[in-house]
C-alpha cells in the first residue's frame, strides 16, 4: 500500500527439495535486501541470488546452489508460484513481499 522510500525490499524466500539443508535446514526465510543495486537500478532476482550466497547460505558447498553465476542445473526458481522463465528469469525486478521459491528437483522413486 505505502510505496515507502525504504532502502530495502521485504521478501519471502523458501528452499525445498533438500536445498534447505544448505540454509540452516530452514525452509522459510523472511528477508529484506537492498531495493537498489549500487548503480541505482532496482534489484532483480539475480541480485537476490547473489545476496543469498553472501548472506544466507550456511553450507560451504555454495556450488550446490550456484554454478557459473546462476542457480545450478536441477534447481527451479519460482516467482510467486510460476517458473521464473515465465517472469524474465534473473532479470525479474523484485516487488515487495514477492515469494521466491528455490526447488531442487527430486529423482527418487
Amino acid at each position, binding site marked *: 500500500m505505502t510505496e515507502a522510500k525504504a532502502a530495502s525490499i521485504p521478501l519471502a524466500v523458501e528452499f*525445498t*527439495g*533438500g536445498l534447505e539443508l544448505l540454509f540452516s535446514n530452514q*525452509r522459510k526465510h523472511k528477508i529484506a535486501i537492498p531495493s537498489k543495486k549500487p548503480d541505482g537500478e532496482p534489484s532483480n532476482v539475480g541480485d537476490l541470488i547473489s545476496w543469498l550466497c553472501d548472506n544466507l547460505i550456511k553450507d560451504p558447498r555454495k*556450488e*550446490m546452489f550456484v*554454478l557459473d553465476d546462476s542457480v*545450478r*542445473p*536441477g534447481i*527451479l526458481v*519460482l516467482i510467486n*508460484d*510460476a*517458473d521464473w*522463465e*515465465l517472469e524474465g528469469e534473473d532479470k525479474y525486478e523484485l516487488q515487495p513481499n514477492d515469494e521466491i*521459491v528455490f*526447488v*531442487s*528437483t*527430486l*529423482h*527418487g*522413486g
Partner: protein
Amino acid sequence: SSKDKWPLSTEEYRRYGRQLILPEVGLQGQLRLKSAKVLVVGVGGLGCPAAAYLVGAGVGTLGLVDGDTVEVSNLHRQILHSTNTIGIGKVDSAVDYLNGLNSLVNLIPHRAHLTPQTALEIISSYDAVLDCTDHPTSRYLISDACVLLGKPLVSASALRTEGQLMVLNVPPKPPGDASGGPCYRCIFPKPPPAESVVSCGEGGILGPVVGVMGVLQALETIKIIASGTVDRADSTGKSFETHGKANEAPAPASPSLLLFSAFSSPPFRSVRLRPRRANCASCSAQATITEASLTSGSLDYVAFCGVTSPLDTL
C-alpha cells in the same frame, strides 16, 4: 467394439460402475481406458500404487518395466510386493498381485531396465507412460523417447518427505510444434551435477509420501486417457493423430508442477511451468535428438548426467 449395444460385459459394468457413473469418465471414458495401453517404468515406491489404481480402473493393457528384485527394505513403501516375494523380480511380484486385483487387465512384464537400445521399441507399443524411476539418466531417456514417439508422460519423484509431479508432453505434439506440452528437457535443459543426486536409499523416504505421488500419477493418467487426449479407440492408431474432442476433452491446463512437502504448511503447492522451449534439444524445431541418435547410444545418458556407475539405476 464401441458400436455394440452393450460395449462392456456385465462384469465390467459391475466392477467399474462407481467410476462409470461419473460424468468425467462415463461409458466413453471407460471404453477409452479399456482400449488403452499404459506403461509403468519402475515398479518401486511410485510404480506400485500407480499400477494398482490403473489396474483397478480397468486400463486394457498395463506394461511393467523393472530389472530389480524385491528386497525387504522396499516393503515399507512398495506395497504390491510382499515378504513372500523377496528375491523375486519386481515385475513378476507385481503381476502376481495385480492379476489378483483385476484379471481383466492384460499385464505385460518387461524384466529389465530401460536402456537407449530398448526404450523406443518398448514405449512404441503403449499410449501413455508413467516415469516411476529414480534417477535423472532414466528421466531424460524416457522423456526423449516419449517426445519422439508422441506419448504423454506422467512423471513423478520423491525423496525424504517431499514429492514432485509433472505431466509432460501433453498434448503430445511432434517435435517443433510449439502447441505441444513441454518435455523434461524443456524444464531441465541441463542435468544436475552428479553429487546433487540423492537416491531414496541414501536420503531415505517416508512410504506414504512416495505413495501419494504414485497414486496421483495414476489419477493424471486416467484423466488423460478418459478425456480422449490420446484415443486409441477413436484414432487410426498413428501416434500423432491423437486428439481431444472439444466438448469432452477440455484443453489441458497450462503445464504445472505439483510440489508436496509432508511437513510444510500448506503441504501442496501448484506452480505454473513454461511452455516448450524454442531451442529444446528434444521437442523443438531445432531438436538434435533423433530415433537413430537415441538408439545408437551416441547420446550417452550416463555421461550426460555425470554418473560413473553403470546404468542400472531405474
